[in-house]
């Protein structure tokens, strides 16, 4: 069974803290994604990684960075958390488009609150 796991379901941090969100997939997928989900705004892509150590900015990368040192793990980093980063963060993975399957598989999400 396909599995994408995220390190925490709920996280509370203070303004200015450095925050790490971890995501692990066990499907040997090339692609991994970080989204944030906000009511009325849907899912917005923060960053995308198509290979180890490779990354690409999404639609809203400001205030975030990512790290992908191993194929199965993709980390989202908030260098200095701010209250407007309070949100639900979703991680997803997929095979590369060249293999013909484009479905993204999602983790359960991390609800981050920044006080």
């Amino acid at each position, binding site marked *: 069974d396909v599995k*994408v796991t995220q390190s925490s379901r709920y996280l509370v941090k203070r303004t200015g803290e450095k925050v790490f969100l971890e995501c692990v997939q066990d499907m040997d997928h090339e*692609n991994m*994604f970080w*989204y944030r989900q906000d009511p*009325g*705004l*849907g*899912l*917005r*892509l923060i960053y*995308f990684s*198509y290979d180890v150590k490779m990354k690409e900015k*999404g639609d809203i990368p400001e205030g975030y960075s990512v790290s992908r040192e191993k194929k199965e793990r993709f980390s989202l980093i908030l260098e200095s958390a701010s209250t407007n980063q309070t949100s639900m963060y*979703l991680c*997803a993975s*997929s095979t*590369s*488009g060249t293999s013909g399957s*484009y*479905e*993204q598989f*999602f*983790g*359960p*999400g991390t609800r981050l609150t920044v006080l």
Partner: protein
Amino acid sequence: AQSVSQHNHHVILSEAASLELGCNYSYGGTVNLFWYVQYPGQHLQLLLKYFSGDPLVKGIKGFEAEFIKSKFSFNLRKPSVQWSDTAEYFCAVQNHNTDKLIFGTGTRLQVFP
């Protein structure tokens, strides 16, 4: 820039009513199309997808969607909804030049017994 529009933000139905959720996208090239569903407290999961071939696609739990290329639409339908269909539904589009998805803003469906 590509975009996806879901016109219905919140839909309330009684059980056994028919459902149609609209989805329109703006991209002139070849696309892959998806509907994802998020049940309360659960992770996002794929409901159905269209890559090519028959424009009428059948998914899980009795859902179907029709791709109408001339209208840039991929509407989701179910002839008779159940209380368990209460969830948020997201349409997503992917163009063939990228592995990224563009999501709509979602439609919250509430079904009352």
